[in-house]
């Protein structure tokens, strides 16, 4: 009941004309980002952060959240219509979505995708309301050792699920932690790793790093082999037939549950729920041979799971302050820029904001379904923009974003440096997510570690004598051990 009351208050916040407008703008911009190949949701969200600088925190966060889930839907459109996934989560949708389009059922594929996304997103928002508040209350009882152990779990998950070399993922995590150490020591206030550069006293800015690694890095990679040839399909009725509806009910239900629960686990990432949902449907289907030939279940399940995941992943971010994916890490950076620290205290200190944002998810989902179906043709037209102009425009916004965060040309240079690094790491197939998550969680990790050791007088036993801490650390060890075992047969993958 408490959550319901908070949600009603949040709904009042979310439905003010200003906040509705920013949810609408965010949904539209997010869809555009999702549609455009070469610009992922993390890069898109980072690039658009400067647009929110002069906004109040509530509309700013509502808009950025809308960009986040709008991008999740946008990628579907091009997957179905032109067999080009707008972002990684839509890759699996190409398999059956494009086949449906070739058989003249593009409208039905997009329709069921929008409806599944709406249902998945909306049901997951209800679940978020139920889960987030108790989880935040529980997290408030945590001391520094528990928080440290929880962060270790989050980082180990992010590391274990990213890329094909666990060593490379761990190395990237250390790289991110090292970057997080640049600037003032959070406990004693002494400068570290600044090498006499005054610009580094405040640390390495998250936005230049994220924009560089994701924005510039993606553009450099895309410009190597830009999209040129687009195979067109016709768009007919957007409504599925009665038979297609019947076949989609189960996948939508299962996709919702699966997506939401995978979203609760930090580090899973947005791609895995879509693949798991697809595989699950293929397993439970009486006609698995249909998959890959235009089965509507193969569109409904991953698209639903994708949006349910997007909402579910907000739970660890809002309740614990742990971003579960690079896009959410960027979103967390946006919270911080707006003077808000995600985590258990958020529900106590900024209830209007957090419940306003949660309520805005409903509004955003409604916007997405109302706007996207009629505008599908327009979104597909975006692909006709030649890449030379598109990439130049994206780079322009990267420069604006990197500069305007701290009005520093040094940050622009930093972004470009990390852009080149991001490009190189992608070429090496070394995952970026552990570095980005470690950069954002690093200061908290160090602070809680050192405070814990001060509490215990330097005795490391504090991490094994407290039950919750020990349980978290055992969980992290199990996750890493499991990943290491999975990584052993690398020769088979290579």
């Amino acid at each position, binding site marked *: 009941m408490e959550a319901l009351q908070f949600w009603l208050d949040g709904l009042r916040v979310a439905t003010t004309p200003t906040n509705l407008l920013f949810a609408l703008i965010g949904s539209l911009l997010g869809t555009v980002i999702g549609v455009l190949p070469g610009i992922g949701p993390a890069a898109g969200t980072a690039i658009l952060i400067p647009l929110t600088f002069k906004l109040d925190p509530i509309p700013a966060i509502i808009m950025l959240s809308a960009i986040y889930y709008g991008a999740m839907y946008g990628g579907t459109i091009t997957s179905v219509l032109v067999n080009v996934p707008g972002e990684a989560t839509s890759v699996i949708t190409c398999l059956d979505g494009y086949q449906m389009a070739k058989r003249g059922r593009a409208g039905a594929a997009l329709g069921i995708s929008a409806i599944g996304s709406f249902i998945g997103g909306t049901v997951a928002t209800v679940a978020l309301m139920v889960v987030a508040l108790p989880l935040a209350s529980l997290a408030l009882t945590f001391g520094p050792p528990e928080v440290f152990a929880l962060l270790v779990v989050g980082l180990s998950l992010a590391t274990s699920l990213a890329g*094909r070399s666990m060593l490379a993922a761990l190395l990237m995590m250390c790289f991110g932690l090292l970057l997080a150490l640049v600037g003032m020591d959070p406990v004693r206030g002494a400068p*570290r790793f600044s090498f006499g550069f005054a610009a580094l006293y405040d640390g390495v800015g998250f936005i230049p790093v994220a924009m560089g690694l994701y924005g510039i890095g993606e553009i450099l990679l895309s410009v*190597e082999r830009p999209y040129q040839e687009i195979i067109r399909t016709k768009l007919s009725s957007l409504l599925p037939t009665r038979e297609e509806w019947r076949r989609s009910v189960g996948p939508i239900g299962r996709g919702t549950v699966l997506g939401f629960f995978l979203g609760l686990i930090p580090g899973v990432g947005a791609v895995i729920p879509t693949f798991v949902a697809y595989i699950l449907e293929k397993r439970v289907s009486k006609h698995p041979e249909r998959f890959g030939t235009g089965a509507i279940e193969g569109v409904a399940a991953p698209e639903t799971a994708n949006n349910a995941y997007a909402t579910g992943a907000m739970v660890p971010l809002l309740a614990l302050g742990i971003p579960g994916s690079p896009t959410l890490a960027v979103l967390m950076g946006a919270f911080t820029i707006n003077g808000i620290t995600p985590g258990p205290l958020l529900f106590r200190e900024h209830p209007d904001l957090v419940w306003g944002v949660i309520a805005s998810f409903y509004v955003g989902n409604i916007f997405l379904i109302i706007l996207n179906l009629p505008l599908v043709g327009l979104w597909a037209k975006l692909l006709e923009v030649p890449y030379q*102009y598109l990439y*130049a425009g994206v780079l322009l916004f990267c420069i604006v974003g990197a*500069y305007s965060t701290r009005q520093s040309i040094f940050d622009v240079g930093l972004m470009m440096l990390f852009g080149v690094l991001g490009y190189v790491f992608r070429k090496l197939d070394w995952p970026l997510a552990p570095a980005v998550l470690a950069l954002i969680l690093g200061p908290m990790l160090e602070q809680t570690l050192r405070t814990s050791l001060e509490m215990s007088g330097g005795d490391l036993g504090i991490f094994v004598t407290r039950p919750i801490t020990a349980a978290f650390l055992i969980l992290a060890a199990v996750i890493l051990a499991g990943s290491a075992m999975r990584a052993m047969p690398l020769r088979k993958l290579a």
Partner: protein
Amino acid sequence: MTRQAWRIASATFVLVALAALIESLRYGFLDRLGPGPGFFPTCISVVMGALAVALLWQGGRPEGAPDDADGAVPRGDEAWRVLRVMVGLLAALVLLGPLGFRLTMLLFLLYLPLSLGARSVWAISVLALAGSFGVFHVFYYWLRVPLPVGAFGI
């Protein structure tokens, strides 16, 4: 090719970890209150160095790292396109202070599409003007986000 690139990258990280370790040791590992400012950096540097060495060793084994033929290193036109973007970005960085946002972005947005093969003068001009003077106006005057103004007051 990728395997070779892995080895180079791993070796670079070994050096980075070593440099970080040397720097960390200057900060004090422990102090009277407990772990000092150098405690966490030292731990991270050591772990990072160990991981980089392990990766270097793994990359040296035939089965240790992938050896994708579809190259880590771009060639031909691919490489030129990447290089042109990098040159454009570097030039923009160097010019941003002295020329200011508007002129720098005007030049950048004229150069980049042209260097990537765009040929529509009309489209390039519109993009360059909108992306330089237009974006400046929106951010500077409407959103009150200060963007750099150059030596010519532009």
